């Protein structure tokens, strides 16, 4: 059994990365073309890594399951990307970004990794601007910023509500350039089916061509997994339909530890569930909390009247509204971190104040009326009208809102058929991001030699809760500025290795196993669709491993998932053949992995006898319903080792977390 070595460099935190870079091995430019690297996933973390490694001169093969690398789900990130530039002169610094991220993560992230992230954050913005990413600008031509949750500065760079799109298209353009130059070979509509290890090292993958169904062997000197998070284990989430855990899970099954799987981010501002045929949930960016105020009625009878359609929110007087975030957290108000905001909304709905007329009455308001009036008045003033009419104020205010959030308001109206300029948005928390992931050391290498994991797929930077606008930052930091150095240090030992053969017994065996699992599904004489099982898994996860967890529920979840797994293999029906495009087969392979992961998440949540960040154990809360951490016993990363072909039997390894530069304290946003 391996022990965890986080390989954090010695020295003061502000010098660790620089010193480490100065002492890592390099691969000379003339040797790089002798070395192959596989990158799985082309979101921010994958595209930036593939582009950077291609620029350096390595032979890169990049894989994505979508029809183009530009479609990866980073594209859907809305609000922005953090960077400690302090352009707004409001006291920001690398240290503050580092501090906010550690605190926001409820003291469950590694100090050294987070400091490095903050350190390179400014470079990301420089790099993106140089690539032609059209960030929002002020009238003076300089970059604009806004605020996000869990911070008291303005450090978020953005491009309307489409920041992820613009950053991904930037990384995609860099990747496209390398593809055009022949330094990266792109395999779109390809899915990684397994990792191939030779002599204990990651030496390639088995991929399936999703158009022809053909299984392909690809060898390399190192494999980078940048395949994103696992939120779709809940079936309903804000993730794209194709987002899946399979690449990360296959690596886990081959020996990489999986860390903190129970740390899941439930995002407070999503459009509430509408019905049983719903396929996914839609996020309304956190940036809206800059301008929107969250409330429910103070009186239960008002909430009920609204649900029954007898009352409109605009008819409820100011004094009858409970702006519960402003009430509970006056210092941060509507901009508390996501986990805090989500739990507060759940608390109000559980108490009967929910306003949505769905099965669970789960919904709260996000109201822009105050902001429309205040910005409208400002705009009028700026135009020289110091005594504007009511109509003018509202008109100008709406115009201001449209400029800032137009695409989000439009998206909301399309989905709900409600006009959010006139009536408050209805929102409720939904699964959005997963902080847990494959365990990696400071070099982003997993516990399998030569297998590196970047972006959301790893566990490293966000602790138990990620702050808004930090996912984009981490994806690009890993891919542009961390991995290219650390992977070279590893590859320096491979300059004489030569091509890795794909006709070895290891490749033979891996391919045969993949083939067998495909046949198993296609020959199964089941009666139910893959989605049928996925939805049931999602319900178990949401109800028992969701926003609030307890011992009894988690134990039930573990058993229910075990039973579901058995039923799945017995009764799933997968139509079609192996040698063609077969979307049901793709789903079946992914759901098989989600089922195993779901169990491990419950096992992880069960062992963590504390509440921290997104992990809320009902047994561990204070008298005001805030999380109660147990730093004495649980200040560690839970890294699970797969054993005996069963997620339930995984072995727990603990990586202790040491806080030398930040004083660990109760997280307080009051």
């Amino acid at each position: 059994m391996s022990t965890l070595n986080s390989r954090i460099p010695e020295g003061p935190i502000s010098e660790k990365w620089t010193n480490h870079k100065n002492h890592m091995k390099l691969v000379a430019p003339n040797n790089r073309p002798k070395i192959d690297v596989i990158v799985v996933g082309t979101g921010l973390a994958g595209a930036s890594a593939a582009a950077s490694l291609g620029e350096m001169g390595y032979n890169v093969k990049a894989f994505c399951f979508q029809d183009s690398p530009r479609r990866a789900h980073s594209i859907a990130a809305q609000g922005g990307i953090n960077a400690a530039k302090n352009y707004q002169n409001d006291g920001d610094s690398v240290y503050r970004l580092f501090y906010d991220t550690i605190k926001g993560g409820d003291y469950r992230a590694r100090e050294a990794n987070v400091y490095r992230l903050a350190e390179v954050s400014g470079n990301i913005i420089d790099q993106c601007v140089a690539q032609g990413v059209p960030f929002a600008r002020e009238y003076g031509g300089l970059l604009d910023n806004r605020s996000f949750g869990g911070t008291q500065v303005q450090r978020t760079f953005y491009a309307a509500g489409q920041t992820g799109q613009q950053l991904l298209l930037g990384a995609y353009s860099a990747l496209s350039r390398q593809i055009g130059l022949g330094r990266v070979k792109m395999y779109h509509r390809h899915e990684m089916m397994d990792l191939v290890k030779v002599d204990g090292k990651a030496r390639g993958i088995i991929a399936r061509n999703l158009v022809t169904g053909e299984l392909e062997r690809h060898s390399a000197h190192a494999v980078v997994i940048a395949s994103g998070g696992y939120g779709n284990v809940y079936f309903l989430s804000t993730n794209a339909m194709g987002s899946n855990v399979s690449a990360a899970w296959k690596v886990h099954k081959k020996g990489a530890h999986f860390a903190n799987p129970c740390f899941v981010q439930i995002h407070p501002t999503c459009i509430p569930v509408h019905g049983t045929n719903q396929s996914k949930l839609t996020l309304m960016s956190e940036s809206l909390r800059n301008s929107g105020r969250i409330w429910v009625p103070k009186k239960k009878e008002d909430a009920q009247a609204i649900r029954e359609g007898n009352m409109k929110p605009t008819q409820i007087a100011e004094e009858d509204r409970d702006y519960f975030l402003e009430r509970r957290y006056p210092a941060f108000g509507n901009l508390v971190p996501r986990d805090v905001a989500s739990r507060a909304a759940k608390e109000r709905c559980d108490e009967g104040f929910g306003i949505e007329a769905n099965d669970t009455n789960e919904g709260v308001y996000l109201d822009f009326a105050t902001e429309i009036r205040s910005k409208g008045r400002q705009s009028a003033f700026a135009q020289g009208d110091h005594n504007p009419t009511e109509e003018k104020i509202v008109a100008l205010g709406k115009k201001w809102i449209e400029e800032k959030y137009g695409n989000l308001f439009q998206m909301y109206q399309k989905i709900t058929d409600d006009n959010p300029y006139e009536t408050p948005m209805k929102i409720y928390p939904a699964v959005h991001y997963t902080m847990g992931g494959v365990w990696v050391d400071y070099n982003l290498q997993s516990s399998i030699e030569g297998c590196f994991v970047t972006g959301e797929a790893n566990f490293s930077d966000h602790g138990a809760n990620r702050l808004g606008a930090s996912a984009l930052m981490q994806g690009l930091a890993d891919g542009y500025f961390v991995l290219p150095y650390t992977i070279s240090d590893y590859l320096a030992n491979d300059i004489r290795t030569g091509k890795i053969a794909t006709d070895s017994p290891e490749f033979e065996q891996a391919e045969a196993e993949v083939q067998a699992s495909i046949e198993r599904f296609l020959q199964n004489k089941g009666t139910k669709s893959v989605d049928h099982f996925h939805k049931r898994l999602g319900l178990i996860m949401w109800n028992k491993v969701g926003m609030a967890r307890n011992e009894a529920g988690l134990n039930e979840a573990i058993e229910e998932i075990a039973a579901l797994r058995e039923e799945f293999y017995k009764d799933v029906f997968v139509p079609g053949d192996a040698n063609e495009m077969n979307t049901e087969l793709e789903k079946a392979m992914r759901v098989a992995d989600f089922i195993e992961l779901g169990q491990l998440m419950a096992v992880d949540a069960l062992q963590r006898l504390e509440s921290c960040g997104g992990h809320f154990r009902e047994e561990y809360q204070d008298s005001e319903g805030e999380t109660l951490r147990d730093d004495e016993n649980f200040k560690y990363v839970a890294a699970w080792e797969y054993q005996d072909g069963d997620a339930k039997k995984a072995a727990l390894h603990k990586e202790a977390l040491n806080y030398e530069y930040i004083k660990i304290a109760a997280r307080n946003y009051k």
Partner: protein
Amino acid sequence: MASKFINITLKIWRQKNSNAKGGIETYSLANVSTDSSFLEMLDQLNEQLINEQKEPVAFDHDCREGICGMCSLYINGRAHGPETGTTTCQLHMRSFTDGDTIYVEPWRSRAFPIVKDLVVDRSAFDRIQQAGGFVSVNTSGRTMDANAIPIPKHDADKAFEAAACIGCGACVATCKNGSAMLFVGAKVSQYALLPQGKVEAQDRVINMVRQMDEEGFGNCTNTGACEVECPKGISLENIARMNREFLSASLTADK
């Protein structure tokens, strides 16, 4: 959101693979919630087909938020269906009424061959991008400070509007000539409007246009259909800008 349930008839293009001959099949679907998205309706149809042990309809989709550009579909003769400024995944069944017959076909264009059923191959777009849709700057983090070059807000906003293209291909599918000029024009414009893109502007437009022609896309005859059907409202102005850039590059480039 007063949801209703409607019954519809679907006429859907089915085609086993790129070599097979395809045809329209008819399906009845009952109890479709008007709050469902169009793709959720197709999920419902597929669930029904699987329960009958039949093969589901293959269609491209991913984010279902109107941003990834993966969904396509010609719905009742219009790219992305009847609503303007809307991708298929953001189209909702409240746009249809009980008893409707809905035709669903793949993108139709020589440059987008059919892969299966409603899925087409749009990799020609990627190859155009690879020919020049970038700024040649290596990763270093040591470029100049992001605020070193102020960019007029007007230009930045225009560049952003062009960059908002999601690469779905509706412009090509809806154009009677199968032209990709709105897509290419948007990418050329994004860079042409920014100082970072100026250095390579001439080579970029020439290379991208050359690749566009090689891929078999048709020419533009200014019908403006692409702009009407573009779910992101990319303006025809971008085609005009590309033409200006191309003309000036062709006349003044060294080579």
